[in-house]
């Protein structure tokens, strides 16, 4: 199985820390994963609403490239961003399930001198870590167990909706299991997949912030001192507006929101900068002395 890394726009921009930590962790695990050459936008964001078929074609191009670069070998395309992960999985399925779409997109790609057989596995890093590498292998790399960090694992909406391929749709646990293995203590909370406000924060800010606030406050209520995410947009929404929220709802929210990969990296004793922890607005140390 060949593993290709699909960053998408976020991991090269707003969420560099996610990329840095993912690559650092996979590197430490000596798990070969090179970046997909010539990748383009996954077609998420507004494009889907403007012209779905074009958006899908855009995404499909990445799959074709991946398949091509893997030759005859089976290939996993690893997309850490939940949006990318969803869109790529979606086009993968649509092309199989709906002949019409499949045909249109294949033809479109033929124009570009590409062809797609449909053999790419679209994977989320959580999936790869749990099922391909395995918790034990990861545990062996732990040098500084995450003692005292009570983590609220937040998966967001897109990783398990509408497709729940490697985790439970209503009560996902892969991140909890991973971080528990890192010595952290996942707090039980029911909002694992509840909406973070998504792009509402950019449009109807009030509504968006309220949704984020509910998550942050509940995490605190349940004794969490850090929130772990696996989605750039969620991380952004939950972390960047904490001051506004405190003002808006009249109660102080101040809790670090990190990528699960950053916590794993920390447990592996990887340097904070290498994990992009220096990019956090709400620094990790303020949450728990132990971490």
């Amino acid at each position, binding site marked *: 199985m060949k593993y290709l890394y699909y960053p998408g726009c976020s991991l090269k921009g707003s969420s560099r820390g996610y990329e840095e930590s993912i690559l650092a962790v996979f590197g430490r695990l000596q798990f070969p994963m090179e970046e997909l050459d010539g990748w383009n936008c996954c077609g998420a964001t507004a494009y889907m609403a403007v012209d779905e078929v074009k958006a899908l074609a855009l995404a499909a191009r990445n799959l074709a490239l991946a398949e091509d670069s893997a030759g005859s070998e089976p290939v996993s395309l690893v997309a850490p961003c939940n949006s990318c992960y969803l869109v790529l999985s979606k086009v993968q399925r649509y*092309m*199989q399930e709906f002949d019409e779409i*499949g*045909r249109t997109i*294949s033809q479109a790609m033929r124009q570009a001198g590409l062809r797609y*057989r*449909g053999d790419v596995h679209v994977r989320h890093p959580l999936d790869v870590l749990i099922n391909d590498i395995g918790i034990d292998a990861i545990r062996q790399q732990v040098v500084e167990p995450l003692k005292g960090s009570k983590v609220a694992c937040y998966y967001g909406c897109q990783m398990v909706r509408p497709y729940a391929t490697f985790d439970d749709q209503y009560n996902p646990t892969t991140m909890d299991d991973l971080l528990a293995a890192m010595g952290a203590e996942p707090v039980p909370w029911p909002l694992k997949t509840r909406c973070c406000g998504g792009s509402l924060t950019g449009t109807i800010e009030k509504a968006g912030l309220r949704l984020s606030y509910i998550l942050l406050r509940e995490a605190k209520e349940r004794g969490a001192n850090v929130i772990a995410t696996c989605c750039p947009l969620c991380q952004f929404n939950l972390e960047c507006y904490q001051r506004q929220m405190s003002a808006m709802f009249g109660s102080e929210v101040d809790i670090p929101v990190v990528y699960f990969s950053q916590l794993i990296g920390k447990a592996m004793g990887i340097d904070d900068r290498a994990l992009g922890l220096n990019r956090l607005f709400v620094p990790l140390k303020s949450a728990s002395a132990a971490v």
Partner: protein
Amino acid sequence: MPEDVSLPIAEEFEPRIVAFFCNWCTYTASDLAGTSRMTYAPNTRVIRVMCSGRIDPQFILAALRGGADGVLLGGCHPGDCHYQAGNYKCLRRYRLLKRLLAQMGIEEQRVRLEWIAASEGDRVQKVTNEMVEQIRKLGPLNLEHIPAPDVDVDAEEPLAAAAEGAVS
């Protein structure tokens, strides 16, 4: 994965499929498809047998020689045979027959064995439609014409001969 839009076969070709269905499962399932008004391709001609174990490979050849473009066999799911193990006998013969047919240049999709329980009317619909479409794509089965004393095959245009063989 759909590749190019495959060229549609000439309209007039309607695949003819002879189906041998076990009385207890697939035949009942197609009755159920009927009572549930599931419409599906009208190309199958069902012959009822008491058990898929009754299906003699000679029947399958006879059907193909008689002009069928495909043959569908329906039996009870493994372990569910009304007569304990008839469906396994059917499976064994089918497996060997498929190897023979491959050597005889008859495409994989033309002869098919399916396990369909009495309650699976929808599977009858699905399988039938599927098979009809596959065979429509393959086109008519052109078996080699069996010569007879009076006709001199070589004198004829080969395809014509074959066609005659297929609709004799």
